């Protein structure tokens, strides 16, 4: 009985992230439009776009290999699983005992591996440029992300997010410098990983400046839908991650009742809206940086993550 309940809850979590992800993307776009004095498309537009893409036929380049066709599903699957591992409205879900924060990083890394390969598969110059830039960003963002994971793990004593959240919500944490550093580092990584301004511009039509979009230029139809959905899921994942580690209050504890779950869900929605709003404001108030400034930007995340970890070691040994 308990197993069935666990599986139902886990399924609910997977469904929640999947259904909310395009909405978050739509919300950020809507807020950005309002901030630049435009009316903007409906928050539901990403759902309509996905439905449209699913109906459309797939146009494949003549020299596209099996890799090109398989990649969208691999990317989507890896990202979806990763998103399902991050506590959103409840902790102690079935999957969370099987994979930890490092597994999430690894899953996202695999998705990146496939998207970069797919970008180069057809042999267009834009895809190559995009893949090379993406790998440059990835090689800096992934270690920074791991260092954040270590800082958090050193504080909470576990890399499993359910344990981390339970510890963070318990009030034993207090205010720690390391956690502040980890928050800034994680935010920078989130911006870079999700191809947001100032690292990349998700709304641009300028092929020469693209990173993420350049790799997926050749995709169409359901393939593109998979990739778009995966991109939305990734954004939701990072927002949920920041939310659950640094603003853990309101997440339903393990074995919570129905009302606890509903309250958790509502609070999760509130967190999504708030963080989405902050992201939109940040993106509107800043220009994109030069490609070669991105390493400096991510270097800050890396250093903060490292400092946070070192600080914890130092303070513990005293």
């Amino acid at each position, binding site marked *: 009985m308990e197993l069935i309940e666990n599986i139902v809850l886990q399924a609910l979590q997977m469904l929640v992230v999947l259904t909310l992800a395009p909405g978050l993307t739509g919300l950020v776009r809507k807020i950005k439009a309002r901030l630049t004095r435009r009316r903007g498309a409906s928050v539901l537009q990403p759902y309509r776009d996905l439905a449209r893409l699913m109906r459309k036929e797939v146009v494949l380049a003549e020299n596209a290999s099996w890799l090109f066709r398989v990649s969208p599903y691999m990317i989507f699957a890896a990202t979806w699983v990763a998103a399902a591992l991050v506590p959103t409205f409840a902790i102690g879900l079935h999957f969370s005992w099987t994979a930890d924060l490092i597994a999430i990083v690894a899953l996202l890394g695999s998705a990146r591996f496939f998207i970069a390969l797919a970008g180069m598969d057809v042999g267009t110059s834009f895809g190559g440029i995009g893949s090379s830039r993406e790998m440059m960003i990835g090689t800096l963002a992934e270690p920074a992300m791991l260092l954040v994971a270590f800082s958090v793990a050193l504080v909470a004593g576990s890399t499993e997010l359910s344990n981390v959240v339970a510890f963070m919500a318990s009030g034993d944490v207090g205010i720690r410098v390391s956690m502040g550093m980890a928050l800034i580092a994680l935010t920078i990584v989130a911006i870079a990983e999700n191809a947001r301004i100032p690292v990349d511009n998700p709304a641009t*039509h300028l092929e020469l400046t693209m990173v993420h979009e350049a790799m997926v230029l050749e995709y169409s139809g359901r393939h593109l839908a998979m990739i778009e959905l995966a991109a939305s899921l990734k954004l939701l994942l990072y927002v949920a991650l920041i939310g659950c580690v640094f603003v853990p209050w309101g997440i339903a504890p393990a074995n919570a009742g129905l009302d606890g779950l509903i309250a958790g869900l509502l609070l999760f929605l509130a967190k999504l809206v708030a963080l989405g709003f902050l992201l939109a404001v940040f993106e509107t108030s800043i220009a994109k*940086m030069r490609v*070669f400034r991105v390493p400096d930007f991510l270097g800050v995340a890396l250093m903060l993550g490292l400092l946070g970890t070192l600080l914890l070691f130092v303070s513990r040994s005293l």
Partner: protein
Amino acid sequence: MTDLSDLAWTRSRHFRSAPIATTTVDATRWIGLTSALAAGRVTLLSLWAEAGGAALMALLDAPAHRVAVVRIEAHGGGFPSVGAHHAAAQRLERAMTDLYGLTPRGAIDTRPWLDHGRWGIAHPLGDAAAVPSDRPPYPFLPVQGESLHVVPVGPVHAGIIEPGHFRFTAQGETVVRLEERLGYVHKGIDGLMAGAELARGAEIAGRISGDSTVAYAWAFAQAAEAALSLTVPERAFGLRGLMAELERLANHLGDIGGICNDAAFAMMLAQTSILRETVLRAAKTAFGHRFMRDRIVPGGVSGDLDAQGEAAIRSLIQEIRDRFPAIVDLYDATASILDRTVSTGRVSADLVQAFGAGGYVGRASGRNFDTRRDLRYAPYDMLRLDVPVRVEGDVNARIWLRIREVEQCCSLITQMLNALSQGPVFADPGFPGAPREGLGLVEGFRGDVLCWLALDAEGRIRRCHMRDPSWFQWPLLEAAIEGNIIADFPLCNKSFNCSYSGHDL
């Protein structure tokens, strides 16, 4: 050193009110002028061909505020190449060969330019010989070196912009060379103009480059009025000036935001787009058309400005004066956008001088030239005009130049409204009675638009040559991006904002 004094130089007061005198020269003299161009003693205004088999060249002596038109008969279909010594003439020569079949002897670059091999005929305005359609592919300039890769972009772009092909050779992210290929929007303007009535010619001129329709129509009208020695009513000049400045305002405002948007700073575009739209609406109220197309005709303007229109322009200027400073502050106070624009896409003062690049491209690199001031024409001869100049030559300088010109536009429009005289706005051009030639030079928002117009005795157009400022700006874009990174190209390109349509004819 070639003696330049015996050319038929004319100051603006003369060539704007009377037919232009042309000096016919022989090959030796032509070559002498070519070396004077190469030495920078005079500036090339344009180079074009005539159907009968002659090459013409318009020269500018900027310090003395005078211009001259020189002609050489192309014996055997050839003339000594100007481009061989003066790079600014190369593309103009290639276009002459494509359209008229004239051969520049000794030219370095003999590849076609406007002719992409899709017309079915060669030299459509010359001997118009049929050619097979299977031409070899266009040979791009070879690039050699280790770990270089080629990134072809266009001619179809992802945004709603005009078509042009850009071929980057890059080493990693750094651009080693950019080669442009244009001509995708060739419309056969020269062919359409030949034999057209004057009124029809004015319409065609206004459609060569849509964003500069006022400047083009004015340049054409100037050339026609000079050829016909026509006296245009005072009020028409004032109205033309108003239209030209409104056009400049709208384009500069759009560009300032557009450049920032290419660095993903959407806030600037949002703010300037609103102002630009306000300008276009005021133009619609005042002149009946958002872009003021077909409003300037040879002889004057086609419609008068009423009190309501004047009020619309005055309130527009007030609105810009109220809101523009905050937008400029936003640009100047955002470090992240300045980090992208400062020192990006530098063009050297020497290059700008050699190419005689006009407009913000020239003035942002220290070329202190403005047709409105240096080759004066009504109504600017009665107005106070400060020409902003900067020396940095980067994207930031080109943005600031536009900002300063927006402020100048507001001042000029107010001065023009206050000085606007009453009276008729149109004088019938009539007929020339004999073949005549006229020259028009107008400062459009990109720079100086040139029109050389030859009319026959019945008043039909024998030859009309219109030269967009972009002819001398496109080549500089290739120089501006060198050594920059590929991702900065959109920024450089937008800061130039050259015309495809005006260039491809």
